[in-house]
């Protein structure tokens, strides 16, 4: 079981969390002007990377808030967690894993 550091509550066991899929997929500003290819991209297409993944988590059985995380999908190790609205951390300057 993973230990996940909620940016609001600190480290908690994985069973307190729900996974929210890929992060930083912004809802279109002007939906009615969006073409069919862009809708497909927004709704369905996912990076699904083997390596670093920016993803949403929700501390559903704790503070119930959404936040984002950078996790390595080849090891499941969390590199960083950060609050919704904050940009994806730049690993070249910030966190060492």
């Amino acid at each position: 079981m993973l230990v996940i550091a909620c940016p609001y509550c600190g480290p908690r066991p994985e069973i307190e969390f729900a996974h929210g899929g890929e992060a930083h997929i912004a809802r279109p500003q002007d939906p009615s002007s969006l073409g069919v290819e862009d809708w497909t991209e927004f709704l369905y297409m996912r990076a699904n990377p083997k390596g670093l993944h920016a993803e949403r988590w929700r501390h559903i059985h704790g503070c119930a808030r959404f936040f984002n995380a950078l996790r390595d999908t080849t090891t499941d190790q969390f590199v960083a967690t950060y609050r919704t609205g904050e940009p994806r951390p730049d690993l070249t300057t910030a966190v060492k894993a």
Partner: protein
Amino acid sequence: MTRFSAFELFRQGLTGQSGWKPQWCSPEPKAAYDAVIIGGGGHGLGAAYYLASQHGLRNIAVLEKGWLGGGNTGRNTTIIRSNYLFPESAGLYDHSVKLWEGLSQELNYNVMFSQRGVMMLAHTVHDVQVFQRHVHANRAAGVDNDWLTPEEAKAYCPPLNISDNMRYPVLGAALQRRGGTARHDAVAWGYARAADRLGVDILENCEVTGIVRNAQGAVEAVETTRGRIKTPKVGVSAAGHTSVVLGMAGVRLPLESFPLQALVSEPVKPVFPCVVMSNTIHAYISQSDKGELVIGAGTDIYTSYTQRGGLHISQHTLEAICELFPQFRRMRMLRNWGGIVDVTPDRSPIVGKTPVQGLYVNCGWGTGGFKATPGAAHTLAWTIARDEPHPINAPFTLARFRDGFLIDEAAAAAVAH
């Protein structure tokens, strides 16, 4: 290549079974092929076999980064059934079951397909309604599926606990009698041997690291750990790694890869006559011919490529197994493992052409593609050979996500083994 037969077994017995030859040769990669398949699981090897046997393409190769069947083919719980809700699914999965029925004969390889029946348990009023809807839809589509009362379910599977003091009592079950199991490795090996016999090159330890496209954007070659191979056609059956492989050609897919686990018990005498699945409390169980109970758990909640999952996921499944089959409470588990499954938003697969000329994909089988091995491989081969969809795989096009024609087995069943 020696044909397998009772006579051959007897003849080899005279020399202490020492005269058997390897079942496929391991040639060096050629510089060019008419087509290559990426992924040496059942789906990829099957596609190569059907390309050679039905479409006359013999100068082809299967490229596998590890060993044959080392992916999900060799890691799955081998449940085979075709009682999916939508007619498109019934078409594809039932095509597959029909091919399973003749596969051992066709390949001259015992894939141990055993139609012992797959029983899906209903535990809530909602389950009952959903499964009865499946039973009716399947009958309309010509696919067998029967509704059983709890007593009838117990008669079919005596170890089943149908008492009403369970947390989720059994309220009934849907039974597909033509469903069952097959030997996972044998499927990969059988297709490999049959393809090899037709001249297909089976290349293990050959990882594809790049897909090369020409000025028009069409596929021209693949880069591998054993050198560059020129080819105008590439079929991809890479299961959990499909996003990675298609990414090499710049194609994005509606896939996410999750760990899915299974485990087996110590072998015991025959105690379990059929396959039982419970989507609601997350347990799948059958008994292999070796005697092990084969148990499938759920996926982890996060995407991953680690080929292992959290222990609490299997624990949850074992709790359900012990409640449904109290006689297994003291059974010891022998091994557990994980595979990486590629899941689509509608839980239906993607089989067919891609936006790149010469690049074909067969993916998104998620937690339930073993059953579809022959059907998917057979229709994929058609699509690769003719560069057009097969009537059965046509609805499973990648374009369905753009065009809004989802085949929403996710909503229909929630779980799709």
